[in-house]
């Protein structure tokens, strides 16, 4: 508000010349254009959320979430296998990526200026920007091909590779924010360095690290491409990580691309669930970042 007052009084004092009116008009027009474009960009979001809710919410019922898919021609059924599959994949990929990610993040926060640290940081950047389908191919070549079978494990590995960069970066940044004097206090008490990190620094940075983990989980929950040739999808229920497994995004893709209208409605229903889950993870992550924030 202060800026607006400055500019108007400045304008009133300094406005000279015949083109003052034209300049003011351009100014107003530009602002209107910016506001218009900014709000038009919101339109797709509103439309998408609207359509998902309208088309999806009516499909959701107890049967939908607890039953397996029926063969085409039969009515009813649900996406129980996809929901459980997604949960299993989330757990699997978190177990694989969280320990490595936090450890690497700790290393980077301790030694951010060494040559090796820079190489790691570069690798993290490249990894984060790698297309998810390429990661799917890698998981295929490393896990599916040698064992001649699609599996939940290969899908979990692909997803964990995608989770790593986010976890590493948020751990590194969170720990770097912790002031040195906290470390000093612990060291001066005779606590060994590694215990200082594990028992003082990590707990202090817990909220930031958790936020990073939740955000990366939110990201991979909606990923389909890496699962196309790894987890592969499975219309039956499967609890074994060595066999193909279904997932929400995969089912949405499969049903959406099919020619059957019943399956299309199921795709909307599954999308509704997926969007709610992903947005919830994001909200919780943000909530943790704010509520559990530690004051130094």
């Amino acid at each position: 508000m202060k800026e607006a007052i400055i500019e108007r009084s400045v304008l009133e004092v300094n406005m000279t010349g015949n083109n003052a009116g034209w300049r003011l008009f351009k100014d107003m027009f530009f602002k209107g254009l910016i506001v218009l474009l900014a709000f038009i960009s919101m339109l797709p979001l509103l439309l998408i959320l609207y359509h998902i809710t309208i088309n999806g919410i009516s499909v959701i019922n107890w049967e939908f979430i607890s039953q397996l898919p029926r063969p085409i021609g039969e009515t009813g059924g649900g996406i129980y296998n996809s929901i459980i599959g997604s949960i299993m994949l989330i757990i699997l990929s978190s177990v694989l990526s969280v320990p490595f990610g936090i450890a690497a993040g700790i290393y980077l926060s301790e030694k951010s200026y060494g040559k090796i640290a820079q190489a790691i940081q570069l690798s993290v950047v490249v990894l984060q920007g790698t297309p998810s389908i390429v990661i799917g191919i890698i998981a295929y070549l490393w896990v599916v091909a040698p064992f001649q079978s699609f599996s939940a494990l290969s899908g979990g590995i692909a997803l964990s590779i995608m989770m790593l960069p986010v976890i590493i970066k948020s751990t590194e940044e969170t720990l770097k924010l912790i002031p040195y004097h906290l470390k000093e206090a612990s060291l001066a008490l005779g606590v060994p360095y590694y215990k200082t990190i594990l028992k003082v620094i990590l707990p202090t940075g817990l909220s930031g690290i958790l936020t990073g983990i939740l955000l990366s989980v939110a990201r991979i929950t909606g990923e389909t491409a890496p699962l196309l040739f790894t987890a592969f999808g499975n219309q039956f229920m499967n609890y074994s990580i060595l066999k193909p497994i279904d997932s929400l995004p995969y089912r949405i893709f499969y049903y959406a691309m099919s020619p059957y209208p019943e399956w299309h409605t199921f795709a909307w229903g599954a999308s509704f669930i997926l969007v709610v889950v992903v947005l919830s993870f994001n909200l919780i992550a943000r909530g943790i970042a704010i509520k559990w924030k530690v004051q130094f």
Partner: protein
Amino acid sequence: MGRIDKSEKRFSAIIFLSGLFIVVLLLAIFTTLLIASVPAIKVFGIGFFTGKAWDPSVEQFGALPFLVGTLLTSFLALIISIPFSISISIFLGEYYKDGPISAFLRSAIEVLAGIPSVIYGLWGLFLLMPIMRTIQTQLGVTPYGVGIFTSSLILAIMIIPFSASIGREVVTLIPADLKEAAYSLGATRFEVIKNIIIPYARSGIIAGILLALGRAIGETMAVTMLIGNSNFLPKSLFSPANTMASVIANEFAEATGLVASSLIYIAMVLFLVTMLVNIIGTYVIKKIALEASKEVT
């Protein structure tokens, strides 16, 4: 005390190795792609990317259609999205830095960025495609509905959040005294934006665009669902086509032998291109952040 020493050494080793693991992982990814592409490289060489025909029946694979598909969709998406993302950057960075409107728009952008790709595809398939069909019939073009233009449109929507947030950050980094100097000379807000803010933030905005481009090139699901899955060189903006990412998504699951190797060859090039774009974009942003922190002193 030797016990403490051992624990210290073990701890340092664990975190060091975990960090190193990431580098090793990346190198392993590249090496795997390279080795698996060798069969295709041996047969087709670099000419792979000028070959127009992708024909499994005669084992003749040329990737030009997919290169063209990727370039067309990505750049078209970029062009469509740029006015919007720059507007958002200026809106949030200059006009409405705080307050409820700002918070609303910022949340909306975050939500947009968080929506899974396959859902964009679903929405595009059932809501955008019929509209495109109608438009195409009006224009007298074959009403595929899907094709390059449709997927570019959905891609544009998907990449707006990326360039917008980076653009916004860069715009807010501009030192206030530069703007004040301009205002005190009698400039309008528009003139300050046009003559001071945009040139100053130019490299940051370009970096944001680069990163959005990287995202667009690698985007798979929404594009796969809306591009029409045709392996022929697209003849117009409304033709169905395939991008490098979508052809892999469509064909890899059942591929063997030379087909598989060719697809992996494509994947490797995809990997290298996005890597390059991301490194340049990130490097530019780092430089800008460094300059900005120096200005404070």
